[in-house]
């Protein structure tokens, strides 16, 4: 335990910067705002590195912490502070590091936007919120970070405030996450009630001999984690969240924020370790999401939506890893995924930018010559995502599937392998439609979507890509190539965290036949996609000629939106109607009225029953009184 002043700085710096940028967003020139916002995140990254060095200096079991506020209720101490152990360090470095690169990229991408200042203020605020989340050492801090992250996401998804679809998307994301949060709060409430403390350690000690409650707590918190991480069945908001600017999609909805659920499950692993059911639930949710996301991605036309479903699928892998006890593999896949998915999104941003706002892959094609830089970096990203050696994705995905196999989850392993094949399929399709072959026609602006401000903003035809946009992509692509080397570091580094509560030693080294199987399935996927959508593929022409939104079971992503519309949205509205219009004030009185009408039918002409309004209120009062009095007279 070591008090470090770096911790509050890491949190406070982006927050202060967000406040300053928000205050001067319309006064300072764009250049100043962009570089100031980016610079602050860079400094935060450096501070995180310093904290990393400090933590290394403490040795294996060391933890950095800092207490902000301490209070006592009824003799019980409560603390609110920050803490850094290897696990949160791992996340913090990615958040600030990748965050910095994406800030840099945004300087170029957002150039000329009228709300430039607001964008950087929000982005800085997000860095603050995410650091707060990963540095929490108790449930209270976790919830605080969790909610702030949700707010940041809300503001950034709806960044194009004049666009109705963006408003709808931000509301959808927020409400879905609110549903998850209710579960999560309930889980935390159960834990706090049962073990009488809000600190992680006390709850971890408590669940050791308490598997029944561990199951309940674990499943409830899984609900929250699944909503934040876009896992089945609470994933519906993620594809719509692509309404935000592309750097936001890269940062929040691919690289960092959506992995908060993975972090929460890894952070609370003793709860899950204590319950076989909860573990299985995590693994199943993950494997099914991996498969469903990959399936849905095969039928999307919007380049960002392909990547969005792909994110859902990849995070599914991370949940699967957590669920089979390979928490290190989950953290590792989080890292490599952050590299290659951010690279892919930023690259997609460059393409959209250069094509003047075009996002439909049916209108692309043959971009290889026009955009050689995007071509090569996208290729690296795609290969890493498919998981071919020696790219980073290979090592991390392989570890996860191997862990599932070694733990005896053969069915989940099979699901994962199928999803890997589909991953290869949709990536090849995407890559081929965008970069190879011939375009159907000259990339004209589609008239249908003229309200999209992202298009308006890029409306001046072909754009040159400035170096501030290219440099981050290059760095991320390079990391996607060599990031696999972290495989040597991850387990020893995180071991002190996961060894504390006697985590099962999960073997993450696959037998050779399994590795061969995974690669073989991937090759099959690539081949199939090439045959269908390659430059001379049989489905390519038909695909490019089709118009409109994707349809069918996969195109609509298993009709989840429609199902929620029917079974959740409509009933809730009906209930609200019921309560708002009939329940109150006719409500509680509505009940009374019902009783009254009943009595009317029975008793005939009792004039007072179709009574006036004040008197109806009075009747409500009297009935309440009678109920209370009966209770006190006979039951106390």
């Amino acid at each position, binding site marked *: 335990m070591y008090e470090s002043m770096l911790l509050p700085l890491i949190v406070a710096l982006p927050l202060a910067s967000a406040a300053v940028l928000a205050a001067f967003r319309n006064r300072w020139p764009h250049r100043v705002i962009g570089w100031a916002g980016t610079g602050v995140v860079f400094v935060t990254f450096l501070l995180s590195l310093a904290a990393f060095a400090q933590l290394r200096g403490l040795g294996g079991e060391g933890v950095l912490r800092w207490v902000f506020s301490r209070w006592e209720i009824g003799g019980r101490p409560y603390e609110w502070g920050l803490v850094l152990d290897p696990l949160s360090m791992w996340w913090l470095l990615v958040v600030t590091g990748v965050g910095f690169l994406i800030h840099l990229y945004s300087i170029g991408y957002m150039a000329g936007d009228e709300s430039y200042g607001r964008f950087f203020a929000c982005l800085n605020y997000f860095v603050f919120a995410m650091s707060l989340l990963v540095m929490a050492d108790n449930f209270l801090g976790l919830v605080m970070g969790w909610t702030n992250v949700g707010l940041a996401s809300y503001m950034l998804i709806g960044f194009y405030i004049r666009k109705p679809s963006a408003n709808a998307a931000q509301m959808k994301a927020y409400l879905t996450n609110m549903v998850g949060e209710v579960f999560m709060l309930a889980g935390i409430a159960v834990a706090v009630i049962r073990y009488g403390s809000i600190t992680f350690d006390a709850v971890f000690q408590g669940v050791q001999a308490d598997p029944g409650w561990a199951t309940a707590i674990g499943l409830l918190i899984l609900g929250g984690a699944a909503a934040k991480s876009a896992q089945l069945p609470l994933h519906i908001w993620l594809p719509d969240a692509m309404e935000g600017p592309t750097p936001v999609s890269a940062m929040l909805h691919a690289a960092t924020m959506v992995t908060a659920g993975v972090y929460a499950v890894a952070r609370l692993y003793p709860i899950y370790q204590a319950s076989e059911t909860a573990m299985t639930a995590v693994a199943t949710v993950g494997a099914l999401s991996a498969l469903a996301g990959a399936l849905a991605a095969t039928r999307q036309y919007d380049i960002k939506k392909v990547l969005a479903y792909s994110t859902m699928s990849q995070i599914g892998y991370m949940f699967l890893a957590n669920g089979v006890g390979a928490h290190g593999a989950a953290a590792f896949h989080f890292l490599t995924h952050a590299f290659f998915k951010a690279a892919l999104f930023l690259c997609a941003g460059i393409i959209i930018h250069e094509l003047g706002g075009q996002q439909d892959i049916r209108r692309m094609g043959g971009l290889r010559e026009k955009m050689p830089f995007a071509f090569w970096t996208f290729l690296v990203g795609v290969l890493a995502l498919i998981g071919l050696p020696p790219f980073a994705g290979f090592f991390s995905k392989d570890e996860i599937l191997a862990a599932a196999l070694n733990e005896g989850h053969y069915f989940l392993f099979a699901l994962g392998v199928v999803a890997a094949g589909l991953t290869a399929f949709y990536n090849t399709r995407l890559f081929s439609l965008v970069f190879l072959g011939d375009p159907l026609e000259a990339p004209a602006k589609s008239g249908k979507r003229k309200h999209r401000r992202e298009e308006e903003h890029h409306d001046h035809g072909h754009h040159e890509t400035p170096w501030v946009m290219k440099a981050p992509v290059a760095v991320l692509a390079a990391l996607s190539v060599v990031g696999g080397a972290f495989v040597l570091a991850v387990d020893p580094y995180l071991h002190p965290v996961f060894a504390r509560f006697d985590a099962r030693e999960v073997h993450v080294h696959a037998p050779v036949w399994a590795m061969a199987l995974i690669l073989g399935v991937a090759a099959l996927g690539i081949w199939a996609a090439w045959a269908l959508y390659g430059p001379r593929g049989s489905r390519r022409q038909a695909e490019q000629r089709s118009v409109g939104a994707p349809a069918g079971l996969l195109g609509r992503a298993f009709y989840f939106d429609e199902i929620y519309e029917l079974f959740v949205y409509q009933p809730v509205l009906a209930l609200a109607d019921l309560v*708002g*219009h009939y329940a109150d*004030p*006719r409500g509680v009185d509505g009940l009374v009225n019902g009783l009254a009408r009943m009595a009317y039918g029975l008793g005939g002409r009792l004039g*007072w029953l179709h*009574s*006036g*309004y*004040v*008197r109806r209120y*009075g*009747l409500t009062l*009297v009935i309440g009184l009678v109920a209370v009095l009966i209770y006190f007279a006979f039951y106390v």
Partner: protein
Amino acid sequence: MVENGYLALAAVLFALGGVGVLLRRSPLISLMCVELMWNAANLAFVTFARMHGNMDGQVFAFLTITVAAAEAAIGLALIVLLFRRREHVDVDDVHSLRG
């Protein structure tokens, strides 16, 4: 005990007042019914004061009577307001606030 009779009377008066508020449409009568409820309480206070042999209940009853006077003044003022706006007075006419 004689006191029990008084208490029963108080309870009956209280209930009568409550039912009256619910049944009568004129705010004037409603006000009178409310007064009946209050005075039922007063009767109970005085009865109990006699039972316990201390003055607290009687003081309370006097306080209530004073407050009731003020209450009636305000109630009547509000009803006069209502009268000025309408020909006749009926609490059921007053229902533009709802929902």
